[in-house]
């Protein structure tokens, strides 16, 4: 399976393309020109868009990609309930969010219209299925947001969204019980992963989970 990382201009969020033969899964879609061209060419089958969580910089490409290609958006039920609301997915004040939380200057921060998208497939707690010879497990890992999930492939590759970013403590202040949920539900799952699990985070470089300081 080939994994391609695309660093998006939206506060350098990572989008990932997983490719096996002519089938693709996109994680945290951004409507980059490459993706649009590939989906339009129809040489490859874009099977799913996975959303690790509901923040705008991780969902911004859903509508544009779905417009051109039939694929299913898969995320947690909690995430699905929030991606439809520009306030809850942070698109409503994304410019201010970039200035305040990421230190961007006024004028440099992206101006976005309030954004809404919908999910096609939703799950709660855990969902497992086989894709092109690989086992894909989606696990709810609340803490950073209520709708956060991690995606574990073949027990050894993890797409963590913003739940785990190397050298950063998980930001759990986005909602009231974030810290409690992370400590009680998500951290035990993450700490139980195989030590050599490679983590592909929502921002920054990939790393091996045994290198992460919980």
């Amino acid at each position: 399976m080939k994994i391609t990382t695309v660093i998006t201009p939206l506060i350098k969020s990572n989008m990932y393309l997983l490719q096996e033969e002519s089938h693709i899964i996109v994680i945290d879609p951004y409507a980059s020109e490459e993706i649009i061209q590939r989906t339009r060419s129809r040489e490859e089958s874009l099977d799913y868009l996975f959303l690790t969580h509901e923040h705008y910089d991780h969902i911004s490409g859903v509508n544009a990609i779905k417009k051109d290609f039939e694929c299913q958006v898969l995320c947690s039920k909690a995430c699905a309930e929030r991606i439809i609301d520009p306030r809850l997915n942070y698109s409503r004040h994304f410019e201010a969010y970039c200035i305040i939380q990421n230190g961007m200057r006024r004028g440099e921060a992206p101006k976005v219209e309030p954004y809404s998208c919908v999910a096609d497939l939703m799950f709660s707690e855990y969902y497992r299925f086989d894709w092109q010879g690989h086992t894909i497990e989606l696990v709810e890992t609340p803490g950073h947001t209520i709708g956060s999930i991690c995606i574990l492939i073949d027990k050894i590759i993890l797409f963590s969204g913003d739940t785990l970013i190397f050298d950063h403590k998980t930001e759990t202040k986005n909602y009231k019980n974030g810290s409690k949920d992370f400590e009680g539900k998500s951290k035990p799952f993450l700490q139980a992963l195989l030590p050599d699990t490679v983590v592909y985070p929502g921002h920054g470089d990939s790393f091996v989970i045994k290198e992460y300081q919980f």
Partner: protein
Amino acid sequence: MTSLEKYNAAFIETFDITEEQLNSELVYQSVEAWDSVGHMQLIAALEDAFDIMLDTDDIVDFSSYDKGKEFMAKYEVEL
């Protein structure tokens, strides 16, 4: 609840502070909870409380409890 009470409640509930802390010393980052994440939560609470939508510049410049009162007036909220 008066508008001032709603305004105060937004600060108290968002930052988990007391009414006694609602004064001119309450500024961005003067309490632990008023960091960048807390700031956006405060904005959301105020927008909810008053059914308004703040401009980006006002959100960015909303630097203190007192300054916020000035901004509320701009949105026709009399405190």
